[in-house]
């Protein structure tokens, strides 16, 4: 039996039966010094006692220990691993950093397929919308999914009927990678007619769910699933959403999580796209062509890289180096200094030389190289950082 998977499943069961919350589990693990969830199942009897649990929780635990799943736990774990379902949890290095920082993120995520698609280095776009799209909505969804996936973007959606299905299909037909976040355990397929797509994604993409295998779809859970959709993505594109569509939940989660929301404009008399129009009125970004989204992502990626560059070098060390041995500074270091200066405002060569104290020759040569590789451009006689796409 896979002890890691067993512990993850066990934690999910504890939470599903309201015996412990995710935070309680984490605090027990850190108090006991277990380091990871892996050994939680083996040691659960010793670490779960009246010291950590309230009487109510103790009652529910006792009840749970009499249930079939607990008594045949090993069989259950084997059933899950036979379905090629794996799990990651928040103590895993694989659990993405961009989700760690958000509140209300699941402790354990079950997956099937290529987990590298949630890597921080990849960019993801969530495409969601109504279950009953118009011809226009279908066309837009397919087209955007295709074009965006050709730019190496991962398309995230919910495998629901309508827009979600077209998003996944568009992506796969363009040879792209896609992630489906399911509202049920990964051994179930919902909706049933998407079985083929489900199988295909499990091989070519990634299926994700926070629900334990064996769990049937729960209608009231549908909105909560949307928070994972938006959390996984760099931005959310709503191709068509009705007035009270569940899709709008995704938009509000996205806004709360700091993800940009794009909406496709539509005619004002369209009933299937009323949600889009109200989103646009409320300040969502307009997506008229896939390039709108690409440009936003490029900007986001660029500034993320910029932050990395800034972090790497210790400015004070360099400043001392400029003073003491200006000739020993490498081209990389100069580039970092220049990027740093130029990221706050545009500057002329004279100003850079004065501000940085670097020799003129080094500055002009590095700027020349940067101009050639497109990192900077000259505007109004000043150097400006460009945004790479």
């Amino acid at each position: 039996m896979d002890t890691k998977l067993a512990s993850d499943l066990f934690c999910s069961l504890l939470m599903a039966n309201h015996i412990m919350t995710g935070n309680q589990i984490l605090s027990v693990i850190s108090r006991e010094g277990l380091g990871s969830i892996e050994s939680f199942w083996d040691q659960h009897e010793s670490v779960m006692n009246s010291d950590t649990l309230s009487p109510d929780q103790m009652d529910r635990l006792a009840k749970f220990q009499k249930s079939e799943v607990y008594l045949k736990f090993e069989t259950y774990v084997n059933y899950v691993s036979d379905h090629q379902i794996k799990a990651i949890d928040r103590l895993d290095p694989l659990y993405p950093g961009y989700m760690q920082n958000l509140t209300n993120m699941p402790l354990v995520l079950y997956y099937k397929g290529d987990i590298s698609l949630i890597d921080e280095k990849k960019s993801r776009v969530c495409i969601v919308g109504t279950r009953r799209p118009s011809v226009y909505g279908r066309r837009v969804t397919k087209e955007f999914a295709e074009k965006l996936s050709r730019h190496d973007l991962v398309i995230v959606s919910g495998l629901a009927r309508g827009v979600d299905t077209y998003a996944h299909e568009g992506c796969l037909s363009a040879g792209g990678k896609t992630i489906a976040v399911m509202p049920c355990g990964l051994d179930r397929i919902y909706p049933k007619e998407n079985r083929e797509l489900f199988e295909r994604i499990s091989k070519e993409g990634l299926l994700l769910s926070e629900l334990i295998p064996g769990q049937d779809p729960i209608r009231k859970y549908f909105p909560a699933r949307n928070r994972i959709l938006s959390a996984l993505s760099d931005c959310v594109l709503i191709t068509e959403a009705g007035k009270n569509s569940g899709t709008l939940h995704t938009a509000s989660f996205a806004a709360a999580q700091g993800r940009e929301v794009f909406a496709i404009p539509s005619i004002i008399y369209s009933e299937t796209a009323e949600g889009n129009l109200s989103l646009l009125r409320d300040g969502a970004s307009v997506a008229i062509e896939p390039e709108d989204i690409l440009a936003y992502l490029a900007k986001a990626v660029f500034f993320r890289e910029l932050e990395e560059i800034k972090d790497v070098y210790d400015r004070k060390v360099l400043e001392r180096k400029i003073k003491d041995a200006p000739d020993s500074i490498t081209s990389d270091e100069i580039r970092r200094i220049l990027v740093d200066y130029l990221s706050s405002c545009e500057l002329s060569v004279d100003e850079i030389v004065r501000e940085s104290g670097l020799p003129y020759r080094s500055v002009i040569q590095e700027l020349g190289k940067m101009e050639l590789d497109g990192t900077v451009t000259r505007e109004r006689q000043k150097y400006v950082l460009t945004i790479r796409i």
Partner: protein
Amino acid sequence: MTQISPKNARVKTLYLQGLEGMVAEVEASIFPGLPSFEVVGLGDSSIREAKERVRASIRSCGFTFPNQRLLVNISPAYLHKSGSSFDLAIAMAILLATGQVKQQVNDVVIYGELSLTGEVRAVPGSVSRLLCLENENTNTCIVPRKDMDEAYLLGVKVEGVETLVEAISVMSGISNENEIDPLYPLDEDLPDPSVDISTLRGQPAALRAITLAASGFHNMLLVGSPGTGKSLSARILQGILPPLTIEEKIELLRVESALSVLSKESIVSRERPFRYVHHTCTPSAMVGGGRNAVPGEISRALNGILFLDELPEFSPKVLDLLRVPIETGEMKVSRNNCTNVFPARFMLIGAMNPCRCGKCLESPSECTCSPSMITSYQGKVSGALLDRMDIYCPLNHISEDSLLETMKGDYSPKSPVWRKRVEEVWERQYERCKQAGIAPVRNGECRENNLGELFRLGQKEMEYAAMVAHQMQLSVRGLQRMVRLSRTIADMDDERDVKTEHIVEAVSFRLPNWGEKK
């Protein structure tokens, strides 16, 4: 000179055609018949008027003007001639023909303008005339007194005269005792420039651009708002140029003497010319022309600076005329069945505001120009001319810090130091040309096509330069100009070969894209 008959006489004289000194022969014949005075030989009206000046001056000097039929011919008769310099030769031929003067010296060349009272006046083009004497077999050269300065500078022995009577006495074998040491000395060095290069402290980009322009004799475009020091930069550039060599000075003197703009001081000065041309300049004033084809501003800027302030204000026609001389180093002007070639090797320094109000770069919010006005303002300078600018030098208003710095003690090298450095860099360029077996030129003037070989670029560097040119969408000329600038950068570093780092720096001096200013 031998007399053909008692009634005939001939004298050699010198005249000016474009910038070339030419030898002509003046013949005078006296026949019996009704008194008349004809001058033939394709002379213009100034030569026809010479008749009256000659008649008056011969009389006022106490000689008789022949009361017979008098014919004067100026040969070669198929070439158009002009100017008043034939006066003295015509008068002398008449006096010889009438026998009032006996010629005691042989192989005489004589020129000068006469006044009604018999004084000899100077004429334009003394230097060209005297230079053509080198190929002529002459014994004595009688010139206006004023031309003696040029003659001694050139090392030509002449007899300077102030009156017709003096010229006659030289002819009769009595030399004027006006001996001056031959080879009039040129100034040893240049005076300190009026604006020192240390004024540019706090503007390293402009400093670099100016020293590069000087070191390779490159054309440069200065762009900046009003008051950022565009004219000042051009003046500074002049101050760090090395002195003219003797050969360069003589070539310049030819131009200046043809235009009669020489003074006693300017003859001996070795300062490189700085021509500040106003934007109302006409095409012929710029490149040369006029009825008798005189050199223009571009020739007066020979081996020096042609400074065009407010470039977009110039007429587009004038600017486009500059394109050919920039490429070929000379200007051909055809007049009167003959083509005059004027030397025109100069550094073109253009200065312009970025827009009409001048504010669109530094304070765009205050700029009152509409985008279309900016485009049309910048569009007045054709792309073809911009393509010929090796260095683009942006000038910005000096910040407070830099202003402060300019008040502090000065440790940066002064102009004379830079001048020495530039001279050394030029020497390196001349030396490389010599090794390659071509005439020594500075990088900016090099008109060879195999720049890669001549300028010592490796395969890697050539590929790099081509890649850069492709990326910056440079024309072939643009690429060549960039390579020349890279060579100058390498020369300033005293590097044998051009490396990629030099090419990279040259990139930053190419003109950035105009157009998307607003």
